[in-house]
């Protein structure tokens, strides 16, 4: 069974009298363990698609299934619960909590999920090690470089062991070298821990990290590069 299943998904934003048809009939299937990249020029609808997959936004037409469940009709708090338990997010501008330390930022979703202090400590330490930030545990985000902050964000996204991590242009605010490092971390976690990743980018250079590349233009899928792994 596919983890994510978009079937003829449309999204229209209404702005008063006018409306923007941001996504126009996208169908896409993502299997567990994949590392998928969505690529396309600015405004083509990447963020919109990722938001719908991540239960942040709802399609105006078509269905979005996550793990077999139609997530287009979840209530606000059901969606929040879904995001907390099953989906991790990495944002372009990191969006860490400035007043909390690296360790606390990473553990925050576990606090929301009601994990014990011991669990938080164990998972947090493991993830800090996995993203190579153990020595920065007590630092505030403001004291870190962009690449380090994005690695904190990745660790935070993973802390509740989600089925899927969504990263919207995770490298757009980074230079290509640190961007590469961040993607290396993602690829390693995908390979070693089997985490499913979807990330968007408009940077052709970083596409080599992806297992499969979905090309988007004007809200429509133009083509898909790479093989979809066989269902196991």
């Amino acid at each position, binding site marked *: 069974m596919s983890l994510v299943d978009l079937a003829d998904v449309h999204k229209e934003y209404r702005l008063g009298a006018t409306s923007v048809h941001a996504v126009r009939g996208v169908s896409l299937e993502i299997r567990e363990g994949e590392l998928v990249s969505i690529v396309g020029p600015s405004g083509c609808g990447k963020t919109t698609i990722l*938001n719908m997959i*991540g239960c*942040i*936004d709802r399609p105006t037409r078509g269905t979005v299934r996550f793990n077999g469940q139609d997530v287009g009709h979840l209530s*606000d*708090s059901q969606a*929040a*619960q879904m*995001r*907390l*338990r099953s989906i*991790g*997010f990495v*944002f*372009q*501008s990191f*969006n*860490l*909590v*400035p*007043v*909390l330390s690296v360790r*606390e930022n990473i*553990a*925050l*979703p576990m*606090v*929301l*999920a009601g994990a014990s202090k011991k669990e938080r400590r164990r998972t947090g330490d493991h993830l800090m090690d996995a993203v190579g930030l153990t020595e920065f545990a007590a630092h505030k985000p403001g004291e870190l470089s962009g690449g380090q902050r994005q690695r904190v964000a990745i660790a*935070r*996204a993973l802390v*509740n062991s989600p089925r899927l991590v969504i990263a919207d242009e995770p490298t757009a605010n980074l230079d290509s070298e640190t961007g590469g490092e961040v993607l290396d971390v993602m690829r390693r976690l995908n390979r070693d821990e089997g985490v499913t990743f979807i990330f968007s980018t408009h940077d052709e250079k970083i596409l080599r990290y992806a297992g499969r590349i979905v090309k988007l233009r004007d809200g429509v899928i133009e083509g898909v590069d790479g093989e979809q792994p066989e269902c196991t």
Partner: protein
Amino acid sequence: MYLKLALLNLWKYRRRVAVIFAGVVLSVAAMELIGGMLNGMRLTFFSEILGGSGHVQLHARGYEDQLDRYSAANLIEAPDVVVDALREAPHGERVEHAEQLLSFASVLGARGRTAPVVAHGVDPRTRYFPEATENIVAGSFALKERGITISRDDAELLRLEIGDEATILARMPTGVPLVRRLTVGGVFESDHAELGAGVAFMRLSDAQSLLNAADRVSELRVTLRDPYEADDFAASIEPLLDEHGLIARAWREIHGTVIVFVEIADLTAAIINAFVLIVAASVITNAILMTAFDRIATFGALRAIGLKRRQLVGMVVCEGAFVGVAGSLIGLAVAVPVVLYFQTHGLDIGDMGEFFGTSRTYYFSFEAAATARTFIYGVLVASLSALYAGWATARLDLIHSLQEA
């Protein structure tokens, strides 16, 4: 960690938090001071004014229609019987004190000069008229037989000193004038409007024999254990009143104008408090809104990783409530000592005291329940402002919040 997050956020926005904090401190302090002042006013009213007048006054029927309040034409017969009834069950347990009074208009004369005085025939150890009994400047109040205590103004006017003799002229209930010689035993000085010049005291028995009104009085003055029971008490003694041809006036009626002042002051305080709270609420709401809108991107991220709207509101309210509690405590820490200071030392309000019929020094009064209320108002105003700010941010579309980044 929730609480820690709130505290850390407060620290991060310490400038704005200082505004919120100052808002809470100032409004709580203002409310506490106003409350202490007015509570003092209420207590002054009960102790000074009601202490002097008693809580219920009984007169012979027809008193309210008399042109001259101090005419001796309309007296209570057999007052002892009434007083005894008041001291017995079922009224006895509500009555703390009851006294007989015979007040009448008269003219005091000495050395060829005269002065009109209202003479009060009272028990030599009367509980009432504290403005006179507590402000003796010469001699003593302890009324001797055929003695009289007069005001300083009258003493000066008539050139009377302790031990001098004066003549008092009054009309008997029948209208026949009578004269008697009395010895000045005490002089009092009072800045009280109604108890200054033109007031004199003598023994009740002297007044009765002067007016040829043995065993008759013009008034029975009653103090109750609970002043708020006065109206109820007056109603409950109705049969007794009917039996003896009496009417009762409770303090609300006696002090109509003063009570209006007390009530106006209470109303004013309520309006000032409401105003203070509204101003504080708008300042605090704005400051909290600013700190919240600054963090829209962070809030968006928190919601994206699974923070529910409700929890977000809770977080902001938690911050507001914390400032509310701390600010209210500081506000009280500032204001309570001031109230306590004026409770012991008093505040000189000059001639305003005369206007209210109280003394020149005005004492505040600290009341724990009122202070607790003020504290709760302070916490509530901060929390509700935060609730509004939290709601205003949480209701934003999550997508828009994320796009703020």
